C-alpha cells in the first residue's frame, strides 16, 4: 500500500540547474519525461485541461543565474528570457524603447499570472500575445544549446519552431534612440481583441511598427498578426502597399483588403473566420488612419 500511495502522490522531481549547460545536459539525459519550466503558468493550465501530461521531471530555469533582467545594448534592448511580464510592463526602458512590447505585455492574462509568467515563456508558447509585437519589432531570439549561441528572428521562430533542447536565453530588440536630427517619426500600435476586455484569450492580435518621414511617406513598416491558436506572422502584402507611400484613405482601403486576404486565422467555436479577418483588417487600417490623423494634426 505504501508503495502505491507514494507513487500516486509523487510530484514531479524539480531540478535546479545553475547554468544553461547544466540545464541542457539534464534535458538531454532525462529526455521526453522532462520539461523546462519557467513561470509554469501555461503548463499548469495544460496539465489541468489534460492537454499535456505532468512530466516526471521539471527543469527549473529560474535557478539559472543571469536569465532575467532588462538591459540596454549598443543596438537596442536585451531582455532576459526569465524576465516576468510584470517586470517588462513596469520597465521604464521597455516603455521608452519598445512601447509596442509594453502594450502587448499589458494585454496578456491577468495581474497574478503576469507576476509569474515570463517573456521567454510567452515566446515559447509561439501563439503568445507578445509574439506579434516581437515580430513587428523585428526582435531577435538568443538561444543557447549548451555553450553554443544561436540567433534567430522572432519571425522565423514563429513560422517554424524547433523542438531541440536549446534554451531561449534572451530577446533582443533592435533600435537605439534613433537619429535625433531626423524628422522621421516612429509609430506603433498594438491591439488585442478577445471575448472580453481583460484577462482573456485573444481572438485577434495585431502589432504595427513603422517610420513616417517628414514628407508623410512611410520608410519602414512591419505588421504582424496572430490571435487564438493562429501562428503569428507578418502581413507582407499590406506592408508592401505602404512602403514609400503616404497614408491616404484610398491606400488604407487597399491595405484593408490586403489584410483580409492574407491573414489566415485558425478557427475555434467562439468566433468565425470572417469576424477575425474583418477585425484584423479594421484594426490595421484604423491604426494607420489614427497615425495619419495625429501627424496631420501636428503638421
Amino acid at each position, binding site marked *: *500500500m505504501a508503495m502505491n500511495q507514494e507513487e500516486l502522490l509523487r510530484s514531479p522531481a524539480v531540478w535546479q540547474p545553475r547554468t544553461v549547460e547544466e540545464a541542457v545536459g539534464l534535458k538531454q539525459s532525462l529526455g521526453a519525461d522532462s520539461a523546462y519550466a519557467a513561470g509554469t503558468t501555461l503548463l499548469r493550465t495544460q496539465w489541468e485541461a489534460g492537454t499535456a501530461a505532468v512530466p516526471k521531471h521539471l527543469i527549473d530555469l529560474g535557478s539559472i543565474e543571469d536569465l532575467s533582467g532588462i538591459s540596454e545594448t549598443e543596438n537596442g534592448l536585451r531582455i532576459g528570457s526569465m524576465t516576468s511580464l510584470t517586470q517588462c510592463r513596469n520597465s521604464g526602458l521597455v516603455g521608452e524603447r519598445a512601447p509596442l512590447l509594453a502594450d502587448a505585455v499589458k494585454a496578456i492574462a491577468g495581474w497574478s499570472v503576469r507576476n509569474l509568467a515570463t517573456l521567454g515563456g510567452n515566446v515559447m508558447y509561439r501563439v503568445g500575445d507578445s509574439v506579434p509585437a516581437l515580430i513587428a519589432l523585428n526582435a531577435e531570439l538568443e538561444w543557447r544549446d549548451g555553450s553554443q549561441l544561436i540567433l534567430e528572428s522572432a519571425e522565423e521562430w514563429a513560422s517554424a519552431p524547433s523542438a531541440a533542447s536549446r534554451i531561449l536565453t534572451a530577446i533582443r530588440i533592435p533600435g537605439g534612440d534613433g537619429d535625433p536630427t531626423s524628422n522621421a517619426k516612429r509609430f506603433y500600435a498594438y491591439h488585442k481583441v478577445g471575448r472580453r476586455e481583460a484577462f482573456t484569450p485573444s481572438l485577434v492580435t495585431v502589432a504595427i511598427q513603422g517610420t513616417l518621414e517628414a514628407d508623410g511617406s512611410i520608410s519602414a513598416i512591419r505588421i504582424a498578426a496572430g490571435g487564438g491558436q493562429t501562428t503569428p506572422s507578418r502581413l507582407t502584402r499590406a506592408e508592401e502597399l505602404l512602403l514609400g507611400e503616404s497614408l491616404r484613405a484610398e491606400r488604407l482601403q487597399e491595405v484593408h483588403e490586403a489584410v483580409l486576404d492574407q491573414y489566415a486565422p485558425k478557427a475555434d467555436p467562439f468566433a468565425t473566420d470572417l469576424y477575425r479577418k474583418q*477585425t484584423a483588417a479594421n484594426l490595421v487600417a484604423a491604426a494607420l488612419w489614427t497615425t495619419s490623423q495625429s501627424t496631420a494634426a501636428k503638421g
Partner: protein
Amino acid sequence: MLLNRESSGERWRIRPDGPGKVTGEMPYLTDLSAPGMLYGMVLRSSCPHARIVSISTEKARALPGVHAVLTYADVPGLNRFGIAHPDHPVFCEDRVRFIGDAVAAVAAESAAIASEALKHIEVQYEALPVLDDPEEALLESAPQLHEQGNIQHRNDYRYGDLEAGFAACVHIVEETYLTPRQMHTYMETEGGLFIPEENGRLTVYSPTQHGFMDRMQLARILDRPETDIRILSSPIGGSFGGKDELNVQPYGALLALATGKPVKLHQSRWESVRAGLKRHPMKIEMKTGTDANGKLLAHQVRIVSDAGPYSTLSAEVLNFAVEHVLGPYRFGAADVRSVCVFTNNGMSGEFRGFGGNQAVFAMEGQLDRLAEMLGMDPWKLREINLRKPEDPGPLGQPISRTDGVRQVWEALVESRLWQERAHEQSQTVGKAKEDSSPPWLKVGYGAAFVMHGAGLGVGIPDPAGGRLRLAKDGKIEAVFGYEEFGQGLIASIEQMLLEQYGFAAEDLRIVIGDSDVVPNSGSSTASRSTSMLWQSLRRLRAPFKGKLRSEAAAILGLPEERIKPLDGGIRDVASGELLLSYSELAERTQEEIVSETSFFYPTSPVERVGAHFMYSYSSVAVKVEVNTLTGRVRVADQFHAVAAGPVVNPQGYLGQIEGGSGMALGFTITEDAVMEKGLYLTKNLDTYLVPTIAELKGAFEVLPIEELPEGDEYGPRGIGELGSVGLAPAITQAIYDAVGKRVTKLPVNPELLQEKVVF
C-alpha cells in the same frame, strides 16, 4: 437621493463578516477539515446520453487507501433528489442523461488516491442518440428521456380575444428572442465536510440556500429521520440560486455513513461546470400589436425552455417566465403558451432572476420595436401601457398595492443619464461621440422597465419566522434560518436590530445556518430573506422588548414605564442611565427571555400556482459605446431606479443592484456555457468568461425609492434579483440607438455589430 457611501452617512457600516472575508481569515465550509477525514470524489458520466450496460467497482475497491466505492445499489432510501420534483438520480442505475450524471462515488485517504480510484471504476456504456435541441425533443419521433416523456412542464395563460385584438392592431411586431446558458460562477465551488457522529447522527457542513430542505432531501435519500441530520450551511462563497438544489451533499453523506469517517468533497471548477446548474436557455417568440396611438391590444407568446435532463425547479422557473412576459403592462388580449423540455444538455435550474431575465429581455424588446414603428419615444410607449396601482397583477391576481410603477418611470425621466440623452437628441442628428473620438465609436442610449415578483408564490409552502433570545452570557441572540452567501444578510440583521430596537452591535449574536438551532424561516431565495427578516423583527419587537422590560422591572423593583431596553442593557427612560446590563439581566432573570414568530410569506388569494403578491419595480437606463471595428460593446453609464420599500442596509442594497447588474452584463455580452452534442465546450473559466472590472468600470447610479403607501404592512420588498433583470434589454436598445441593429440573441455577437471601417 442617490444611494452611495456619502448619502448614507452613518447608516453605511462595516459589515460584521467583512474583515474576515476580505483578509481571508474566515474559513468557508469548504475550507474545513477533520482529523482522519477521507476525500470523496464522484464519477460522472462520460456520455451525454447512454444506457449503462455494467458498472464494476472491484478494481477501484482493491486500490490501497480506498475506503468505499458506492453506486445506486448503496443508496438506502430514495435514489433521487429534486426540491419540487425528485427525478434526479443520486446515482444512475441503467441510464445516464447528461454529462454531469453521477455513476459512482469514492472515499479515499487522499485526493490523489480518490482520483486514481475513479479511473479504476469500469462502466460500460451503450451510447444513445443525444437530444441537444429542446424543439427536436418535442417531436414525436424523439427518444423519450423519462417515463413522462420529454415535456417537463407546460403552462399557459390567456385572456381576452386575441384574434380580434390583432385584427384591430395598426402595428404588429413579431420577433424571436434567444438567451444563453449562463453559469452562476460563484467563487466557492460546491463542496462540504460530512461527519458521522458517535451518537449516530450525521453532521453536514455544506453550503445551501435552505438548510431544512437539504435535511429533508438527505433524510429521504439516507432513509433516516430528519432529526438525525444536522445541516450547517453558512457562510457561503456565493450561490445566486446555484446551490439551492442538492449538489455534492448526497455523496458526502453516503460516503461518510458507509465509511464511518469524516469525508470531504470539494468540486474542481471543471466538475462544477460539468455538473452544476445553469440558467435555462429560452427561446421566446412574441407577437405584439398596438393601435395607432400605441395602446397594446394583443400579445402572443411562445416559450420553449431547456430544462436539461432533470427537473429541479424548472417548472417553477417556467411559471415565473409566464408571469413576467406579461409584466407591468395591460394588454387587450394575451395568450402565453410555454413548455419546458427535457434534453441531454447541461442541468438548468434556479438562478437569480428565475426566468424573469429571459422574459423581460423579450417583453421590453417588443416595446422598443413597437415604439419605433409608432415613431414614438420608447419610454412614452411604456407610460401609455403601464398598469395602475389598483390594477390586478400579471396573472389577474390581487397584488400588494404600491405606486412603484409610476415612481420608477418618472425617476428615469428625471435621471442625469436620461437628461443627457434628451440633450444629445436635441443637439445632434448623427451619433458620433464627441468630436475627438474616432469615427468607429458609436454611442447610444436605452432603457427598460422591470416588475419582479418576490416570494415563492401561490401554492408553494413559503414559511417565515425567527427567534430572539437573551442568552445566558447576556448576548441577545437573533436566530434565523436564513443563509449568508455574500449578500450581507448578517449585516442587515444587525442593522435592523440597531436601528429598530436600539441595541448596540456588541449586545448581539447572530445565529444562522444550523438546522439544530434555527427555526424554519424558509429559504434564502426569491428575493425574500430581508423582507421576511424585517417582518419577523417587526412582529417580535413588542413581545421581546416587553419581556426584557418586565423581567428587568421585577429585578430592579421599578415601574416598567420608567425603563427601556436599549444599547448595553436596561436604561432609565428619563436620564438614559444604564440600570441593568444584559448580562446581569440574563444572570438574574428567573425565566429564559425568548420570543419566536412564525408566519407565511404573504400570497395572493388566487388558485394560480406561482402567482406573486409582492413586487419590486425598477427602471434601468444605460449608455453604451459600440466599437464597429470589433463589434464590441462597452457599457459606459448606468442608472437604476428601484422602488422596493425602505433601504434596510445601504451597502447591501447597493451591492445587490450593482452585483445583479454585473451578472446581467455577463448575460448580455460575454457569458454562455456553449454546448455541442451534449458536451460543454466552455469547460473552465478560461473560455467561460464572466465580466471583469474592465467591463464594470462605467458610471453607476442607484436611486432607491423608499416611499410606500400609508398603512403598508409589508415593508421592504426584495431586491436580490431585481438588478439582474432589466439591463439586457436596456443594452440592446442602446445598441440599436447607436448602430441601428436589433439584437435578438444573447450574448450579443460582436460580428453582428462589426462594420468594415471607412474613412
